[in-house]
């Protein structure tokens, strides 16, 4: 017999589950298990990364390029993310051949929303911070820092990423290319 779970404990367990999901995901990327990573996305997933502008403090609404209208760093569905994975697997994608060494640090995980209310939601909104370190060939090194806003959906008992917004804390991109995932 399971003891009834208090709402506080349910929230704690949910957060634990989500954190573990995000850490496992980072592990798949750093170990270059891209096909398994791609399988974490729902079929209708949206993966996008707006650009940021320098605007006056009172005009924050114009800071980000708009989803679905403006130019972004990424604006992808699962099919095109799959092409990116395919390109990494060709062995002749010179921007990642030899492969970069990449480390994803995921932190400050916050559950922003959970639907439906109760002990076992099927959709949760999650915000997290990332620090991505890339070192390639010899001394080439990049550090990218920012936030992610995810919508996770429980499908057949497992969490999947239905939507990911990536917020990079740079306006001019300080690295030559974005050949890796966030």
């Amino acid at each position: 017999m399971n003891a009834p779970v208090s709402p506080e404990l349910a929230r704690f367990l949910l957060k634990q589950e989500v954190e573990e999901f995000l850490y496992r995901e980072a592990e798949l990327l750093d170990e270059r298990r891209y096909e398994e990573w791609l399988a974490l996305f729902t079929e209708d997933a949206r993966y996008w990364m707006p650009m940021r502008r320098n605007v006056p403090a009172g005009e924050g609404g114009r800071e980000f390029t708009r989803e679905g209208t403006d130019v972004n760093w990424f604006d992808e569905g699962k099919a095109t993310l799959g092409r990116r994975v395919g390109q990494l697997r060709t062995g002749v994608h010179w921007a990642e051949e030899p492969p970069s060494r990449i480390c994803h640090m995921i932190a400050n995980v916050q559950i922003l929303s959970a639907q439906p209310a109760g002990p076992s939601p099927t959709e949760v909104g999650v915000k997290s911070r990332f620090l991505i370190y890339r070192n390639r060939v010899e001394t080439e090194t990049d550090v990218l820092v920012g936030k992610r806003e995810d919508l996770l959906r429980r499908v057949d008992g497992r969490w999947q990423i239905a939507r990911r917004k990536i917020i990079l804390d740079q306006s001019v991109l300080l690295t030559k290319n974005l050949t890796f995932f966030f």
Partner: protein
Amino acid sequence: MLDGLVDVERGIVSREIFVSEELYRQELERVFARAWLFVGHESQVRQPGDFFVSSMGEESVIVCRDGAGRVRVFLNSCRHRGMKVCRYDEGHTVEFTCPYHGWSYGTDGALVGVPFAKDAYGPRLDRTRWGLVEVAQMTNYKGALWATWDPEAPAFLDYLGGYKLYLDLLLDAWDGREGGTEVIGGVHKWLIPCNWKFPAENFSGDRYHNVSHRSVDLVGIGPSGKGRRDMQERNQARWLDVSFPDLGHSMIVFLRPPDAPIAPAYQDAPDVAEYFRRCEEERQRRRGAQARLFGGPGTIFPNTSPLARQPRTLAVWHPRGPHQTEVWRWYLVDADAPAEVKDFLRQYYIRYSGPAGLTEQDDMENWNYAHGASRGTIARRYAYNYEMGLGRATARFEDHGLALPGVIADVTEANASEHNQRGFYGRWRQLMEAASWKELAAP
């Protein structure tokens, strides 16, 4: 001065011009302070008071539509102590105020505000002499905004010369109407560790580097599902490398046979495919024989690169020291295209180009490491080879009665040549050696 460094007749260019600090400083004076440079698009400054901060050479400039509706380009630096008067990327304003001592300037560049002016300066300060520094010449050509610091520079259309026909492939509407393009909101800006001439010469006409894009050909990101571009259209065409050696501009273009049917394109999206089919019909009706021509990448001397068709973009390679380039990439669409067409193109463009673009990613890797491996004491003793296709171009190209401007190398069989790159470096050398535009214009 450049003897032995740039010899385009023999196809030899020294690595020194890519890595030398001294030549770089001279470049800023003789190339970037004199040439016409692309600064933005009029659709970024639609209303009086709208501004967009751009760059010319290493310097920040403000592109602004003044109260009278005229587009102006100013050096973004206060006349008092040099602070940037605008550190926002774009927006709307009635004046630019320096945060250091508070001097303020109208959207026409006039010095309009000086704190404590009466007490601090008395009657001495002549405000009319201390407005923002303005470029010597500015031109709006079909929505694209160009500026030069040199009052002696030839008018923009003379600077463009016969290249106008090829730039129009980018700036005219898909259906052949004059102009009609706008930029999609947001400009990609990123840093590449290489000299600015690497990307400028690559876009001038480097078909040869297609091998470095093999990975994207294999996975296919073309708008018709397979390949990375619309190969059917290209496969039936003559492949031409067009250069204007006396101007420095160049473009890769394709010339369809006169009787060729319209090749289907954008087959990933039936509505978009239908839109382009209708546009192409219209274009052929409007442009006649010239509609046989369609454009690829090119470079307008020195550092602006149109990519005329798929995707349709404009890049500027801003110098940031001899070893670093800041790229700005704008994306263009027909202003009156249906929303679903714009959206399809937007997603395709950024999946292809820019730092996250499957195609352009590999370019940056090549330029990064080519530049780095050219800097060594030993490495820089050895020149680069630009001999490909020497002696195979003609200044009188004609096909089925259609004469095309420029000096043209037909590379349909050869696949590639370095004809365009030689034109680029020949003009670069002329500017670096000439003391003035008058000297350049002399026969």
